[in-house]
């Protein structure tokens, strides 16, 4: 049984009830612009840089970052998507619905891989993603970009680029879309 001080992360299912808006559409757009510049600054350009969006929440953010980088630097950045379902440490514990298949058609050897996800929470998804990444080659470096860092880490993982740090309760749920970021709870009925 889980330690009551560290209860299992909430099981998602049922209906999302928004409680508050953390960012609006403009806030998300501005955060992505800032993160794009930070990625450029940190890596001194875009050579050997690839973006990998995590299914499903990180994919649209990775595409948006690539659009921004093209506009700023006039250079295309390869974008892949990664589904970590088969690398998770909770296979056989929870029912994992895999979503869309991975699309990573390029070799990651000697590349700077920027993993992109919507929310950084326990860090377990990122742990799984790093295991998956090395099956596609040996990257020069792996960096992490997330729109929301909500805390509650269970592994020694930290992000390199963050849209916004948001203190949350463990049972809350963060919903990230292009039109904004909402904080709420999941429930069968409105609690």
């Amino acid at each position, binding site marked *: 049984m889980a330690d009551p001080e560290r209860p299992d992360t909430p*099981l*998602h*299912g*049922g209906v999302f009830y928004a409680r508050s808006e953390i960012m609006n559409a403009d806030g998300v757009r501005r955060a992505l612009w800032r993160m794009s510049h930070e990625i450029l600054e940190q890596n001194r350009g875009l050579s050997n840089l690839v973006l990998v969006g995590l299914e*499903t*929440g990180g994919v649209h953010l990775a595409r948006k970052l690539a659009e921004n980088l093209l506009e700023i630097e006039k250079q295309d950045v390869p974008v892949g998507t990664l*589904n970590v*379902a*088969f*690398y*998770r440490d*909770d*296979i*056989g*514990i*929870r*029912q*994992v*619905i*895999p*979503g869309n*298949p*991975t*699309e990573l058609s390029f*070799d990651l050897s000697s590349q700077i891989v920027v993993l992109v996800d*919507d*929310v950084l*929470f326990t860090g377990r*998804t990122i742990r799984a993603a790093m*295991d*998956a990444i090395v*099956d*596609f*080659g040996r990257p020069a470096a792996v960096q992490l970009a997330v729109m929301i860092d909500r805390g509650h880490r269970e592994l020694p993982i930290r992000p390199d680029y963050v849209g916004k740090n948001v203190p949350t309760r463990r049972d809350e*749920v*963060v919903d990230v879309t292009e039109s904004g970021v909402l904080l709420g709870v999941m429930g069968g009925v409105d609690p």
Partner: protein
Amino acid sequence: MTAKHIRGIDDLGKSGIEDILSLSDHFHEVNARRIPKVPALRGKTIALLFYEDSTRTRLSFETASKRLSADTLNFSIASSSVKKGESLRDTIETVSAMGVDAIVVRHGSSGVPWLLPRWTDVAIINAGDGAHEHPTQALLDCYTIRNQIGSLVGKKISIVGDVRHSRVARSNVKAFLALGASVTLVAPKTLMPVEVESWEVETTDQFDSIIGESDVLYMLRMQLERQQNSFVPSLREYANEYGLTESRAKEMKSESLIMHPGPMNRGVEISGNVPELSQSVITDQVANGVIIRMSALYHLLGSGSENNLESYVDE
């Protein structure tokens, strides 16, 4: 809902079949990687119990297990205690006591996979029982068709040949119907199953009459080892009436598919260069065998159904 066993297509139903087909899109991608392996079933052990000969089914289950990082226990009749007279029950209890998570079983007697849960709690996958069912073959056939021509709804699939002795045909009829296709069985009356009237299928003994209207011609292997009861007057006559020859293949719609579960008797149910025609997807069927068996194993062992938790979408 995930199934506890895959003994026959009825264990899965339409939603189980569709779940396995969509999982297969993921494993298709995994198989195309430089390192075609994921840690999904690390720590699980899968026993392969083959009481009948097999090349592709056994190899594909073994490959599938390894690509999911599961361990395999291989059991071959020739070198086992079955030769000393050990009963099926004792063998199953012995294997089960070694701590396996799933048993893949092929047996010459129909119904064996349904007996095993009396003696063990582990997941059972049927790799062929007598002339009864071969569900993973049907799943890979559905996947192959879906990849080539899309949804099966409304498609006309003709299964041609020795339907009577074919476990492939029994599983395929159920799976094709569940996915919305219509099925025609084509065989001489002696090779039609006795229970065919209870199936929701068309039947005919005139092969030439259905070639032009079929979206899929599914050629069955003539089971030469079961022909001692004279089901057909001669193999040559059977080949003339029911063999897919190059001239018959010319009567097919250009986008229709030619399928065969293997191993082929060239010159009997299929002849000349028909397996090499552009409409033939016989090699795709073999390639999809590993993929679909990864899906079947993951469906049973990777779902978390034993903990009975609500379905969960990752953040």
